[in-house]
């Protein structure tokens, strides 16, 4: 198992970027681009930002969102509106300022030249996996199984078509409007049986990642998963965001995660 990147909370900054653009994909799914970042802002694929969505007391807590890309001074986030916090983000306007803490947490292992990685992302879970592709070394290779409910939720992928790498996108939709009709894990299972990979990466709903973990076990491959747990501080201080490890310990997903070795996670949770 390659050593997961150690968390970088010491890089965390509190900053107030400006919303540069909000691009709508499908109902409730949007790409938020922020600019006026701190000098030299950078991140490692898998890390997230913790965003304050309201200046009042409701909603109280920040919202964690994975970073999809930093490009030409713009921080890009792929967000789905699921509740009041993400709705407030969606309703904000270009020119508004947000209150952002980050980058936070652990990252996926970078893909080295000559390596091939299988990735499975569900919905907005694809964001950190696209970041992995964006940051892969020249000559890296992989397959990204990209699952959504319907074709209109698939975002503009041109920015992630790298000429100097060998990545292939495999779509799956619930309604069959693009690619395989069914789960992205169906495609991942097939690929894992046919191709030789160095590792598997996944991000998405818990049940989906649990299936990916089973695929990895079956194929005898290392697997890195980006967990989604309710967060408080995002800094490692409150111990509110823990997941249970296979040796029964409670590990903070904000600082020792969100990207963790899948074999250390107790997937069967109560």
């Amino acid at each position, binding site marked *: 198992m390659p050593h997961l990147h150690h968390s970088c909370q010491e890089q965390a900054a509190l900053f107030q970027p400006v919303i540069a653009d909000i691009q709508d994909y499908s109902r409730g799914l949007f790409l938020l681009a922020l600019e006026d970042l701190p000098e030299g802002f950078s991140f490692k694929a898998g890390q997230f930002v913790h965003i304050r969505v309201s200046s009042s007391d409701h909603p109280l807590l920040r919202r964690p969102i994975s970073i999809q890309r930093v490009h030409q001074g713009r921080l890009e986030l792929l967000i789905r509106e699921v509740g009041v916090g993400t709705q407030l983000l969606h309703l904000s306007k270009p020119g508004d300022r947000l209150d952002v803490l980050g980058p936070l947490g652990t990252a996926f292992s970078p893909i080295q030249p000559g390596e091939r990685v299988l990735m499975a992302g569900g919905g907005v879970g694809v964001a950190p996996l696209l970041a992995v592709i964006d940051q892969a070394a020249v000559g890296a290779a992989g397959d990204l199984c990209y699952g959504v409910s319907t074709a209109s939720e698939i975002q503009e992928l041109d920015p992630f078509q790298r000429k100097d790498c060998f990545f292939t996108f495999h779509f799956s939709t619930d309604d069959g409007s693009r690619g395989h009709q069914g789960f992205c894990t169906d495609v991942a299972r097939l690929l894992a049986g046919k191709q030789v990979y160095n590792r598997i990466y996944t991000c998405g709903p818990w049940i989906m990642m649990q299936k990916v973990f089973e695929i990895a076990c079956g194929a005898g491959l290392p697997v890195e998963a980006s967990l989604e747990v309710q967060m*408080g501080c995002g800094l*490692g201080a*409150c111990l*509110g965001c823990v997941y249970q490890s296979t040796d029964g310990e409670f590990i903070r997903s904000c600082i020792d995660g969100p990207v963790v070795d899948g074999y250390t996670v107790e997937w069967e949770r109560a």
Partner: protein
Amino acid sequence: MASLETRIGMLHLKNPVMPASGTFGYGEEFAPLFDLNELGAIVSKAVSLHPRPGNLPPRLVELKSSLLNSIGLQNPGAEGFLREKIPFLEGFEPPLIVNVVGNGIEEYQEVVEKLDECPRVDGFEINLSCPNVKRGLEFGTTHSGVERITTALRQSTRKPLWVKLSPNVPDPADLGKAAEGAGADAIVAINTLGGMAVDIEKKRPILGAQFGGVSGPAVKPVALKIVWNLYKHLTIPVIGVGGIMNGRDAIEFLMAGATAVQVGTANFINPCAMIDILREIRSWMDSHEVGRLEELIGAAHP
């Protein structure tokens, strides 16, 4: 410019703002974001004798203007604290107050005695009230219980001893009197209010531990009233905590009778909340021509 100095028994603080236990870890996580030397004091996460794993997740539920938590006092234990956390804290000046928990009076005593020898530890905050631990509550709920544990701990240390009260009792001021009578140097009020939340789809409590403690803006009026009553009935200082989000909230606590304030949940929303609160207190005092913090303490009492 206004002086923010304040005194809690024999401890002189350069200002009245400090973190509430459990919301600031042991300080490390916030050090990249602001200078910890700006704080009036540093209050640690709870320390027990042996390491504690804490409660099953989920541990946090966000509510309207409040937060429900059931962390369960996860901590590295007294030895772990001395070994892993003290070296970092030695790099900073503000007095260090260690929040102590135990399963019985003996455990509290053992923790205090172990840490008493450490020169970096400037005092203890006795957590009588954490609703997340099954046996934590019983000492904190009766006059004689508080008296017994305070008397015992008073014998274990000469350093400042603060007793932190639970709001989940009929008469917190009476417990404050018990602690004062038994030699406590200050009372800290309040800890979280007992609460729960239900997942109606799963038909189960949301928290892994079923019950937790409520904190944040919604508990402020409850905390203020308890601080008010403690100030009225005690002579030792009261440290106010509960729902402080900004400088105005902190000033309310000072006027209700708090000699210093602790900031908890606000640290999660704004990691620099304590620094902002300090700045806001200072500028309020300047604009209202209040020269010394003392003038505010208890000012709302007729």
